């Protein structure tokens, strides 16, 4: 991709970075659910009480 101005370059790269952050955050939620899926529920006893 060719850029004619610094604005073009910044617009493109920042845009890609924001898309990356969005995808990263969504992936992180999935990763966190995978990581903590089998953790014991520390509040389970309190809810039963």
């Amino acid at each position, binding site marked *: 991709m060719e850029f004619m101005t610094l604005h073009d*370059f910044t617009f493109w790269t920042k845009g*890609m970075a924001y898309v*990356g952050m969005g995808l*990263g955050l969504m*992936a992180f939620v999935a*990763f*966190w659910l995978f990581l903590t*899926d089998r953790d014991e529920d520390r509040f389970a006893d309190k809810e039963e009480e």
Partner: protein
Amino acid sequence: MSHHTTPTKSFWTPANIITAVILLIGLVLTVKRFTMGIASVSNLSDDNPWGIWIGFDLLCGVALAAGGYTTSAAVYLFGMKQYHSAVRPAITTAFLGYAFVVFALMYDLGRYYRLPYPLTIYPGPTSFLFEVGLCVALYLTVLAIEFSPAVWEALRWKKIRHLVHGLTLILTIFGVILSTLHQSSLGALYLIAPSKLHPLWYSPYLAMFFFVSSIPAGLSMVIFEGGLSHKYLHHKMDETHLAESSGVTLGFAKAASVVLFAYFILKWIGVALGNNWSLLFTGWGAWFLFELIGFVLVPCLMYAVAAREKNEKLAFWASIVTVLGIVLNRLNISLVAFNWQLPLESRYVPAWEEIMITVFIVTLEITVLRFCLHKLPILHEHPEFKGAH
């Protein structure tokens, strides 16, 4: 501590013989270095002034000693008391790590006897190197004080031990601040060389990459050393350390997986901000992907599965991969991808003496660590100070 009676072993075990040989060669090379100059033992030059003594001994040494601030922050700042037994081994490793970083620096500095100059005679407060020097000097002092209770307990000096123990919280806060500053500044040192460092490794966010990656590096070293201690120094550990070791491994594995995942995403954002996508399809790109996938994503997933399945062995192997990954990353930035445009004959290749001195320093550090773990109350509580932590 379990009191097994171990049969008396000969001092000259294969491991000790290899250690003695390495130390002997290292001492000879040390004499050569300090009597005949740097050029007699290295390929360093004005064109390539930083070699493996900086790339490995310093950059990797500081990153891998990050277990001290991560563990003490987790326990004393975030109140995770279940990891308390990991604090003293982590502080010991960090203290020795930083002490040997400074020791290794003596070999690399042309006028090593001027090491205190930046702090006393010629301060350069606008330089990142000045900040690194100041922080390392202060943090080494903090670590020495944090480590000292083990010595006071062994000497049974109760008053000074009590005094130093009272400083724990303030020292931890000070240690975290100093670590945040110099871990990131080590990366920031390379901001001055955007034309020398390959674009895939160069980023305006190098400082952040160095700091973020130091966290899993430190956590992995705690897991790695915990695993080794559990295997080889089992008899030195008391009930508390043995009971908490599993929780420490799995808890740190979970934390390391989260930070590695964040680091993986941040590295891609770095590629996006530099618009370096096309470089990924070159030979350098393949090497970059090898580092990023093989030594960041893979250990991240290994840690995640280990924490999920409560698999300590997998966490131990993940710690090895992570440590190797940190070493690879620091060497890539300081040596491999540095001056990447130069023809091969102009590139720096370490002399065998440089490699041997590095091996000597690492061996010496391990020997001192072994001595400390055997002689000081690090993996167990001193009988006279039980519950005084």
